[in-house]
Every structure is written in C-alpha cells, then in structure tokens.
C-alpha cells in the first residue's frame, strides 16, 4: 500500500468519523423525533462507508460483508421508528378526541 | 415482470453473493430464490412485461448524472453560509402504473438531491415531493415527469 492511498485512507477515516460525530450532535439536539432518526440513519450509512475503509485498510474483504448486511437491514430501524411516530401521533390525537 | 424473471434475478443475485459464477451456483440460486419467492408469493401479483434493456441503461446513466449534479447543488447550499433553498412540498400527478415503476420513480426521485419523495397517495395517482429549490412548482413537476418518470416508464412499462 503506497503512501498516497494510506493518506487518503486516513483522511477518509477522519471524514467518516467526523461525520458520525456531527450526526451525533444532531441526534442530541433533535428537536423532533425525525431529526434524531435521520441522524441515526446517517450514522448507519456512515458505518457502511467505514466498513469499506476498514476493508481496504486491513486488506480484508470480510468487512465488506458487514457493509452488505448493514446496507440491507439498516433502514429497518428507520422504518420502525417512522412508523412509531405516525402511529403515536394518531393514538395521541385519538385519545385527545376521546377526552 | 413475471415471477420467472424475478426468480432469475434472484438466482443471479445468488451468484453475485457467492461470487463464483458457475452453473451449479446459478441452479442453487434459482432453487433458493424459488423457495424465497414461494414464501412471499402473496406479494407477487401476476404481471408480464418486457424488459427494455436500452431504457434501463439510459435510466441508469441519467440517474447517476442527476445524482452527481444535484448533489453538488445541495452540497453548495450546505457549504455556503446563506441558505438559497426555497423548499416546498409539491403534488405531482403520476402516470407510472406498476408497482415496480412507482418504486423506481419514487426511489430515484429521492436519490437525486433536491427532491425527496414523501408519499404516494393511496390511489397511486399523486406523488408528494419535497423539493429544495422550488421557486417554480410547475417547472419541477414538469422536469420530474419528463425526466425521471419518463425514463422509468420507458424502462419498465415501455411497449
């Protein structure tokens, strides 16, 4: 592995980790449920990228398998939480209507 | 796309996963794919369509072009201190009919920065799109219909 690639990798890691940290800031700040979920979703995608970087860095394609799985199932959490938000709103309104 | 086609795709996917292109792999993939499809049978209606290879290729190319161009636009907005965005939620009438078509249209719209598919109405006739640079709603509607939706219809539903 030559110096350029190594440097690029280091930059790549730095960027990805930085983006995760920034997403975390959004996650903390919210304010809405969706903001937090979007932040979490972004992190998932960032981990996929992270796996790609790790695969190169350590010369092990095995990490791409992690990315593969995550790419397929990662969004499920987003879907579940989005659905929660909707159903929750509906329930709250229904309860408010019943009161 | 009929069941057979879907099955072939799954078989190919299998080969892709295993990474070894061979007849045995293809057959195994076909069998396993068949099993999977059998399990999800209720989801698959009866449908027969041509595959329009050229339309597909065009779709792929155009999509990537759009993706990169509009990504840059959004990136620019993010990086510049003032927000140029004039976001809006826009209703777009849908011509695409098939499930696959709708999925493709909505996904591709979402993937191209600047537009985001929010929802499809229950009657499948209207698409709700969130656009970032929506100074002119009609222009956006038109570009979506003539661009992404057209390409998808050609690829998926074309005669």
């Amino acid at each position, binding site marked *: 592995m030559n110096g350029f690639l190594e440097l690029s990798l280091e930059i790549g890691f730095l960027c990805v980790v930085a983006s995760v940290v920034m997403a975390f800031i959004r996650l903390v700040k919210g304010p809405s449920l969706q903001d937090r979920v979007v932040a979490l979703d972004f992190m998932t995608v960032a981990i996929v990228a992270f796996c790609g970087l790790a695969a190169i860095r350590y010369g092990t394609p*095995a990490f791409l*398998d*992690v990315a*593969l*799985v995550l790419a*397929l*199932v990662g969004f*499920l959490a987003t*879907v*579940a939480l989005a*659905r929660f938000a909707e159903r929750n709103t509906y329930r709250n309104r229904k309860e408010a209507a019943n009161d | 796309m009929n069941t057979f086609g*879907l099955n072939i795709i*799954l078989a190919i*996917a*299998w080969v892709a*996963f*295993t990474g070894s292109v061979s007849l045995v792999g293809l057959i195994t*993939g076909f069998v*396993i*794919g068949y*099993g*999977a*499809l059998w*399990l*999800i*049978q*209720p*989801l*698959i209606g009866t449908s027969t369509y041509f595959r329009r290879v050229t339309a597909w290729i065009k779709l792929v190319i155009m999509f990537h072009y759009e993706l990169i161009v509009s990504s840059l636009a959004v990136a620019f907005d993010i990086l510049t201190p003032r927000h140029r965005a004039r976001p809006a939620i826009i209703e777009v009438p849908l011509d695409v009919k098939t*499930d*696959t078509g*709708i*999925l493709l249209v*909505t*996904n591709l719209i979402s993937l191209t920065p600047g537009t985001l*598919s929010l*929802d*499809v109405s*229950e009657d*499948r006739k209207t698409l709700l799109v969130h656009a970032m640079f929506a100074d002119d709603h009609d222009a956006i509607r038109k570009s979506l219909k003539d661009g992404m939706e057209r390409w998808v219809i050609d690829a998926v539903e074309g005669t």
Partner: protein
Amino acid sequence: MNSVILRVGTRYLAGLLLVFSFYMMLRGHNEPGGGFIGGLTGATGFVLYAIACGTQDARAALRVMPQTIAIWGLGIALAAGLFAALFGDALFTGQWLFIGATEDDKGLPLSSVLVFDIGVYLVVFGSILTLVFAMEEEI
C-alpha cells in the same frame, strides 16, 4: 402500514433478504456469516413484511406458525448433534461427507455441522418472528 412505496419496496426487499440470509448461512463456515446472522437477516425480511403489510399477510406468507419453525429448528439442531450417535461419536461431533472429492478438491461438503447451522437459522428466524408478530398483534 399503508404505504405504497414501502409495500412495493418490501416486495423486493423481503425476497432479497431471504435469499441473502440463506447465502449468509451457507457461507458461514468459511466466511463471515452462519446460522445466527442468516436467521437474523431472514427474520428481518419478514419483520419488514409485517410492518409493511400487516402481520396477517406476513403470517399467511409464512404459512407455518413461526414458533413451530423455531421449535423444529431446535429439533433439527439437536438431531444434527444426535446424528453422531450413529457413528459412535460424542454428541455434536461433526459428520462430513464430501461429494465428488478428489486429491486436490474436497468436493461439495455435506455435514451435520451444516444441518446444525440450518437448525440455528430456523430457530433464530422462527423465534424473532414469533416475538415480532405477537407484539405487532397485541400492541
């Protein structure tokens, strides 16, 4: 969930996840994967199905009660362990059959270990769906 997009997407994803899960299970002995990962992934497919189309549809698609799948999985895993008894080996001793083995190539391996992994797959798959379906229905 009454979303056209999700439903249509699920149509592809559920199948994809199932196929992918078999793949992950089968390759597990040599690459990352295995029964757990396979089972979890496969279950994810049906969880998505249940979220998108409701548990009734998902149950109908599955045809068999998920808890039955899980318990059969346990039975299969156990059977894979008990299989060694036929050869006078201890419980869970792997039994291997290499189809078409040659000097250089071990051929297509069939083994009780793979059966065991299938059992694991079914258990994880069935159990998660038992849980998720019941939760979806009761809550």
